[in-house]
């Protein structure tokens, strides 16, 4: 993992502030020299409810994919219910296109630990697990070294910061399964069971989570933001973003752009066009834009020439509907949702006119076919069927009815499964076949 290039003028590196520096080391002394643990100390001067109120007012939304308001999620925990509470930090980072949490885990582990301390104090949690994907083979040792350093300094363990508060943090490695990013699957995995997502309701692990106790599951980046909300104050933090979606968001751009990479941008500060053509240096010479997957492979694909009807406040404050091209689409959770997709994990995969959409969808179908946990029949069977149908279309063995069949299979998965994997696996097929209908029809007719 290399150092990030100099920030683009539109960037505001808060989470990636430290790792932007040349030779920034993941040890405690370096972190302390960069203002480390100041906000953890500050948190103990505040009331837990004040911290929760700050996170709510900051409009922080989860950075793992669902963009759920973090403060609202925290609000489900009743601090004084007499039960043990747990925090599970989701560092399973497996959504295709996403590559931001690994940077924090490997290069700035203390920032995550500081976020964990603040979160645990606010929610009366004394045991936290950092669940990481095992393919991050060096991250466990890096995190455990950081935990040990923090313990020696009295920042973790018993009576942290001399405040009479105990907190233990452990690192837990997964086994290379995408499903474990789903929060209830993660909990089952952490309990040592087959990681089948849990039946809902209860909808939130904050009600019944790890070991059937109230549990908060938050993404790595989300937890890091908590420190900066306390540092900047909720109003300045919220101001960086748009209404209901505060702060910065780390965009991960991959695919057909000149400068792929991670870019930490104030939420809503740039449009899709600015991200691709300015910040990422545009496409390769002679190429034109064909499609964008805006928020990880599970989000619905957007076609380059699409025009969306998006509601915006007009001059008099009343909402008006405005026609918006893809390149003018503002990158915040609300706008991307209004365009019929989702900001998800902010993983933007760019495809130029050289790309075959049947090939691209088939690649994703094979991913979902491999990663379905197999618990629910519509998903277990459906994702394999979709993969087989797109494979045969690509091999010139398709039938004219295949695009419709693909769509029908997807329709019969989404909404019929225990977890959101059903939707995640169906949305690519539904959107690709709808938006590139001609290309799919041509491929189906080819023998």
């Amino acid at each position, binding site marked *: 993992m*290399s150092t990030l290039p100099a920030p683009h003028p539109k960037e505001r590196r808060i989470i990636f502030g430290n790792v932007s520096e040349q030779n920034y080391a993941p040890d405690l002394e370096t972190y302390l020299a960069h203002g480390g643990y100041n906000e953890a100390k500050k948190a103990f001067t505040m009331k837990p409810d004040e911290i929760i109120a700050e996170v709510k007012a900051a409009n922080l939304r989860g950075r793992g994919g669902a963009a759920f308001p973090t403060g609202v999620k925290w609000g489900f925990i009743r601090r004084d219910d007499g039960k043990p509470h747990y925090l599970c930090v989701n560092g399973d980072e497996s959504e*295709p*296109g996403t590559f931001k949490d690994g940077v924090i885990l490997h290069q700035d582990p203390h920032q995550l630990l500081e976020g964990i301390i603040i979160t645990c104090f606010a929610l009366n949690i004394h045991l936290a697990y950092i669940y990481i994907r095992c393919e991050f083979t060096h991250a466990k040792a890096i995190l455990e070294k950081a935990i040990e350093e923090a313990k020696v300094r009295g920042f973790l363990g018993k009576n942290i910061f001399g405040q009479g508060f105990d907190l233990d943090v452990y690192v837990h490695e997964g086994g*290379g399964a995408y499903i474990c990013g789903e929060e209830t699957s993660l909990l089952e*995995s952490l309990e040592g069971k087959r990681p089948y997502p849990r039946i809902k309701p209860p909808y939130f692990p904050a009600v019944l989570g790890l070991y059937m106790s109230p549990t908060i599951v938050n993404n790595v980046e989300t937890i890091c933001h908590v420190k900066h909300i306390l540092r900047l104050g909720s109003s300045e933090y919220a101001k960086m973003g748009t209404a209901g979606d505060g702060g910065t968001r780390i965009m991960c751009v*991959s695919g057909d752009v000149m400068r*792929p990479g*991670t870019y930490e941008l104030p939420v809503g500060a740039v449009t899709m066009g600015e991200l691709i053509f300015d910040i990422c240096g545009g496409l390769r010479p002679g190429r034109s834009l064909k499609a964008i997957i805006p928020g990880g492979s599970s989000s619905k694909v957007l076609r380059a020439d699409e025009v969306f009807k998006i509601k915006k406040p007009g001059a008099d404050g009343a909402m008006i509907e405005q026609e918006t091209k893809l390149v003018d689409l503002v990158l915040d959770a609300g706008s991307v949702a209004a365009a019929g997709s989702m900001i998800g994990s902010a993983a933007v995969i760019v495809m130029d006119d050289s790309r075959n959409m049947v090939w691209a969808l088939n690649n994703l179908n094979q991913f979902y076919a491999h990663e379905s946990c197999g618990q629910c029949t519509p998903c277990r069977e459906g994702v394999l069927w979709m993969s087989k149908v797109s494979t045969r279309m690509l091999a010139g063995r398709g039938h004219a009815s295949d695009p419709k069949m693909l769509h029908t299979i997807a329709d019969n998965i989404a909404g019929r499964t225990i977890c959101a994997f059903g939707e995640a696996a169906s949305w690519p097929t539904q959107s690709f076949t709808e938006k590139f209908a001609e290309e799919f029809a041509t491929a189906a007719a080819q023998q």
Partner: protein
Amino acid sequence: MTSTTAIQASQIPPALLEKIEEAITHYPVSRRSAALPLMHLWQNHFGFIDESGIEWIAAKLELQPIAILEIVTFYPWFRQTAPGKTIIRVCRTLSCAMAGSYELHDQICKATGIDSEQGHSHGMPTSPDGKFSVEFVECLASCGTAPVCMINNDLVEKVTSADIETIVAQHS
């Protein structure tokens, strides 16, 4: 579950046992939670988990062997047979595929003597000389530096055809 090849449990060195005992302390609420950590420690030491390993881990955590077997078989990371000396994992998913990971995978399979048709499906075929196992894996979370692969425990970014030649030569 008995097998003549199931010998790992009789060869646990004290250092491994110490790590196992320590890992169990991370889960004060439920010993069962230590299943994955123990499987990792076991596989890191022995290279794979044999039947005796499954039975030993289960007994250690006060579980039936099926409780360990069902997760060994669930997770792609764990294996029940010995891999090649060097494990090469090539990312198969979209951003890497767009950057040429299928071609790289074919090249690696050819250079190591593995049937690439076998390799394009999931699984971890081993070269006839036992030097390499090659796995076509799903997204490794480094899409910005595609194509990527892992050589044993190390990530290699922006892999080129020339890199593959060097890597295979180095580990042959």
